[in-house]
């Protein structure tokens, strides 16, 4: 009975090990979100009261933007990665229309949420938020330039290749 238990335990550990090593990379977006929180909090010098009200609204804004973007991305993926011989004018047209609709809706969404941010943050901090978002993207792009096989990137290459 004891031997059987040990076999089961050993088998379990082996399977567990296999499970662990087969794990994919941690979902990057979750980690990037946490880093973004630290980045924006520092840039805007958010107080505890401001952060309490700001982050739920900001997260909600980002979730809605993602949902909006996904509507456009479906059409974009088809045109961008599809076989040119198979794609029709209707496919191209669908993507352009989806992109236009997305830009319009995104602008409306931004307007709606900037109005909310203005109730939570000072006018200066709302402006800093927009700048911080852009800078955060630039920081991420900088990391993209660290790609080892990127001739202009990596630690050995010149910085700010983009």
């Amino acid at each position, binding site marked *: 009975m004891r031997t059987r238990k040990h076999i089961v335990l050993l088998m379990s550990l082996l399977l567990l090990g296999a499970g662990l090593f087969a794990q994919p990379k941690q979902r990057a977006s*979750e980690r990037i979100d946490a880093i973004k929180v630290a980045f924006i909090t520092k840039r805007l010098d958010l107080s505890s009261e401001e952060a309490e009200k700001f982050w739920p609204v900001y997260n909600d804004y980002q979730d809605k933007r993602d949902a909006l973007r996904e509507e456009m991305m479906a059409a974009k993926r088809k045109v961008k990665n599809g076989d040119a011989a198979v794609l029709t004018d209707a496919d191209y047209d669908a993507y352009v229309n989806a992109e236009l609709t997305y830009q319009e809706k995104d602008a409306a969404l931004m307007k709606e949420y900037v109005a909310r941010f203005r109730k939570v943050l000072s006018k200066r901090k709302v402006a800093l938020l927009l700048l911080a978002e852009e800078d955060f993207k630039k920081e991420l792009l900088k990391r993209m330039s660290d790609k080892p096989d990127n001739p202009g990137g990596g630690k050995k290459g010149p910085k700010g290749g983009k």
Partner: protein
Amino acid sequence: MTPALRYLLCFLLLFPTAAFAFPGDTLRAGGDMPPDTTTKKKRAPKNYIRPTLYFSRYGTGIRDMRGEPKFLDNRLGNYGFVHYNLGFYAPLFTSSWYRKDSISLANFHLLFTFNTNVAHPTFVGLPEQHRLYKTGFGLRAIYNTGKKSIWFFDASPYAVGDRLDRGTRQPRYASILVWNWTHSPNFSFRLGFTRTFIFGNRLHLPMIGIRFGRLDDKYISLQFPRNITAAWVVNKNVTLSMFSKPFGGLYRFSNKDSLYPANEPVIQFGRWEITSGFKADFNLGSNFSFFVSSGYSWNNRINFASYKFDKNDKFFGIVRPFYKASVDPGLFSYFGMSLRFGKSKRVAGDYRLYEVIDMNNTFDPGDNNDGPGNGQIPAKAKRREMERLKYKDVSDLFDVTDLY
């Protein structure tokens, strides 16, 4: 270990392998994936709480036991205990809306819960060992007002019984209602009421909790009657903690050994102990985490009660035992794992949602005081983490062409 439990264990260990090994695995040189040409829209997440399946095993060695009356003490012999706990929760419905001020985001979460727990008490003197189970489905509701308050309610009906005798099955009900007031990320206060069996008896207790420190960093939390915890979220992968908490239950126990001399087929077995120790939680990816823990189990109490014996001595339903014993303290081993499924809406930086997640895990389904941990709460990003990001960390995040 029963065959069913073995299969369950194997399933739980195989599942992460099967679930996560294949996407992205490729034999093609360079690991390039074929381009994504799907026109199907990816579903936007609807919930803040991710469906979670968790499993744990807790056990102590065989220890000396002293109780009254002596004749039963001699019959039972020394005592040891092991339990296996499997739980699951998933959001059924989530709604969020802005309050009148248009900046306070309130949300309501309704969750389905499932829990099954198999307890293996070992009485060295008994010819056949009992396998006690409790299994149940439940519902819980969490209402985050979008201000400082969060309301939590859990209803956990379940069945208890002894595998030695099918006739021992009986329904039971545990519940908790808690109001939480989050003053700041560093301080929260909880008040509530619980019907619980974790002290080896049917008790109706107040719930009082207080926390100092951030849930995503370092904190000390005192949650009576659930736990006292001091935790340190070292980084995104590791959380270390010291804890002290009661473990216990009131089980149905077949009287085929005639422990209670009267002609009664089923008796009640109550046990509780306080476990104090260290715990290390490891988050390996956003979907999988496991923990290992050890420490000292003390204030071990067990008792047997009979409805006949208890007939005229009921106060708030507390059972009066005909046998009580205390067990010597000893070391315990405790480990477990949890799997989280699907995607959730963003929670980063929103410490009221951290509080919601913490409440959902502190008050675990099934009244076992054995939840899956706070692996869903993102660790506070360290100052230099941005600088440490590498290409591989961001390459999967989004298409470069979208960074205009």
